[in-house]
């Protein structure tokens, strides 16, 4: 088997495994949600003084003892093993692509996507090995399935040699850190989305005022809150405060790495083009992304912005990150347009 077909098969295999992991982890999340609701009910029964035997048993453990790690289901085992196998297979696929191409596998959009989604999954698995964040699994596997699927069907191109401008140590540094940052910020964005969903789910519906535009806005909001209230699986994710703490940690790491990416890019540009910054579209967007995440960090510590609004700023940053990689690569002209072909 050639490296090319090995890479191809391994990546399709990983895509399929992630799809299975996505379904299984969603089922597990629903089960955690049920268990959590049941535990809550029981606690309140105990608190109400019920001397029922089963309730008495559970009262022996402290009130806060619900642990998602204690919820076992077949789905959990399937999700975990398919995800790990998927990550291993994808690793093989990425490395084989690198061998086939004869250079690091992140010089075209296709390569960037297969490596970036892989990093997102690995970041998740690393965090997961320290604390149970299985509630992020449906989002991460969903993202990876979609990204890989798109890469294999739309973005795929046969490997080619590198043009002279890309043959640099700085390509390895700059782009690899960019991909790692992207992977981490992706997981952070997923945590942030869950944070906002949980947050609005816990909201009461607001009274609809009579004013025209405000009325529409409140209606729209209520409709969304109602949908979120219908999604019981959201009980399975932690409280908004906890999700925000996790998202912040991920964003902080991602932001430092992105800062490094931008700086390494400037050093590379200095070497290759004789100017460290030229407001090339790619540079503009890297800057925009950096500034938005800086705004997020400020928003977190600003009254009235902490919590929801800063979460929205972080998501805008993520949208810009994805834009930088898609629209900017494909549409805008600039020195960086190597990435398309």
């Amino acid at each position: 088997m050639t490296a090319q077909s090995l890479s191809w098969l391994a990546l399709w295999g990983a895509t399929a495994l992630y799809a299975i992991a996505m379904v299984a982890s969603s089922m597990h999340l629903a089960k955690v949600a049920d268990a959590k609701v049941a535990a809550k009910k029981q606690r309140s029964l105990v608190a109400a003084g019920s001397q029922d035997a089963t309730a008495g048993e559970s009262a022996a453990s402290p009130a806060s003892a619900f642990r998602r790690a204690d919820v076992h289901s077949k789905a959990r085992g399937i999700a975990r093993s398919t995800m790990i196998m998927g990550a291993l297979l994808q690793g093989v696929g990425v490395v084989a692509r690198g061998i086939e191409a004869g250079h690091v596998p992140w010089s075209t959009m296709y390569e960037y996507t297969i490596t970036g989604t892989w990093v997102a999954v690995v970041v998740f698995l690393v965090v997961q090995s320290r604390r149970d964040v299985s509630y992020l699994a449906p989002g991460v596997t969903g993202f990876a399935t979609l990204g890989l699927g798109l890469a294999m069907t739309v973005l795929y191109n046969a490997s080619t040699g590198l043009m002279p401008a890309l043959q640099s140590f700085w390509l390895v540094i700059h782009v690899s850190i960019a991909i790692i940052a992207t992977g981490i910020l992706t997981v952070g964005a997923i945590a942030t989305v869950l944070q906002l969903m949980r947050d609005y789910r816990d909201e009461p519906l607001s009274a609809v005022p009579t004013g025209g535009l405000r009325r529409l806005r409140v209606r729209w909001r209520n409709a969304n809150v109602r949908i979120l209230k219908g999604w019981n699986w959201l009980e399975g994710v932690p409280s908004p405060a906890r999700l925000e703490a996790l998202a912040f940690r991920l964003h902080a790491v991602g932001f430092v790495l992105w800062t490094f990416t931008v700086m390494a890019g400037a050093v590379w540009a200095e070497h290759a083009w004789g100017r460290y910054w030229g407001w090339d579209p790619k540079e503009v967007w890297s800057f925009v992304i950096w500034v938005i995440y800086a705004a997020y960090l400020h928003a977190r510590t600003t009254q009235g912005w902490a919590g929801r609004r800063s979460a929205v700023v972080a998501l805008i940053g993520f949208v810009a990150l994805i834009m930088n990689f898609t629209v900017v690569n494909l549409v805008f002209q600039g020195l960086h347009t190597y990435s398309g072909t």
Partner: protein
Amino acid sequence: MARVKIDNYAYRDMPRLGLRGWLRWIWRQVTSMRVALILLLILALAAIPGSVLPQWPHSVSDTQAFIDEHEFWGPLLDRLGFLDVFGSAWFTAIYLLLFASLIGCIIPRVAVYWRELRAEVPAAPSRLDRYAPVTETSPLSPADAVAAARSELTGRGPAPWRWLTGHRVRVDERTGPDGAPQLALSAHRGHLRELGNLVFHLSLVGILLSVAAGSLLTYRGQALIVEGGSFTNAVVAYDTYSAGALFSEDDLDPWILTLDELDAQFEESTGRPTSFTAYATLTEPGQEPREVEAQVNRPIQVEGAKIYLQGNGYAPSFTITDSEGNVAFEGAVPFIPQDDVYTSTGVVKVPDVTEGEQMGFKGTLLPSALGEGADAISIFPDAENPVMYLQMYTGDLGLDEGVPQNVYTLDESQLSPVRDEDDEPVVLELTPGETVELPDGMGTLTWNDLPRYAAFDLRRDPSLPWLLGFAVTSLLGLGTSLFAPRRRVWVTAPTADAADAAATVVTVAVWSPPHDQGATLERDRALAAACDRPRPASIPPEDDE
């Protein structure tokens, strides 16, 4: 009075502030922080048009085409600065405002930080109940228990490290909330974080100043050297030259660069370039000549400046004699590559003829020609089968008017193509080494050989080391500011029943932002020290909610 803490913006659980503290807090946060946040968002938004619309500094022709194409919007956007976003007044205003806000914010914070470092940390709150305290009975006496917790909290290792990573601690003897005497320890950590934050923001100012200084002190020029030729660093020698307002031309070092060889490698099957290397000899004043190499990613370093290999191409060399048999022209003429296979075009101007009209030639070079006559194309960038087509003109080259002329185009206003008997323009076809007779006995033209040339971009920017330095400090500051913890730990132990030394009830509480995973561990370690137990090693598993 409680003093202002630098870091209690949005966390409601913080110790209370006094009135002056509140005023200051309001001034600092509501004005600066929010303004900074909004300016940052505006800055991000304002940068986007610079990637969507064509920009003057990037491409004059694209931008002009855009203006011509959009009769209404083009000139309007141009007038409003959208076609040079990063040089526009409004973009400049936004970032200058942001930096004004940054400086206005950072200077008071440096002062506050300096005062805080030298002041004692605030005493422990009288009640710890709000901070989820843990309690344990210690075998040590109250004084020993608190002393043990203190040495745990002040940190480990040699002095600067301990100072940077440990807590600042104070211990009071006081009356507890229940009226009984107690020892109360208060430990604060966060000075490293704040230091990182200040370093980060100050480095941003440093970066801005370096960029500004760089644009004043820089110079940049382009020069083209044919293999075997050389270049002396002086303003007149450059094809284009530009310099910052504070750079004087007298500061140019008169070094000499000789291009020995330009090596271009292409993939055999596809013709894609794989590497370009310029081998050159550099002679700096008062020094032995030395061999240097430039590649696309590896500039040549010369005293304070860098020489980048920016482009390359062919520079066919010709000898042209006139009707009298005198040599009217001799030398290499750079041709500009037009496509990936180096189909190149250029012009030869022959003003110095002994007699008759001036001559001009428009040439097309096919490095690896395939086919005949007008249908010939080049199939590979290397010179495997070079063929040259020259169209000949006679008349006035227009060189005497003193108007600077583009060396790559012929001014055809006073020239006419030479025609043969059938009234077709004469096109000379030749290969290297070949000599052809010019029509009507006007002389001969010899294509001697086909050297390559290298286009160099030269740049001196003395701000670069500063930029790099500030970039590094900003990154270090950022990392410290985001990852160094900010915590308060409080330990209390009642001293009333000191007689019963085996039963000191130690209470420990901690405050930290919610994302700080290590805070509980810190609390448990302080408690363990106070109770003379071994240090807990790792973070206990978290409960879910």
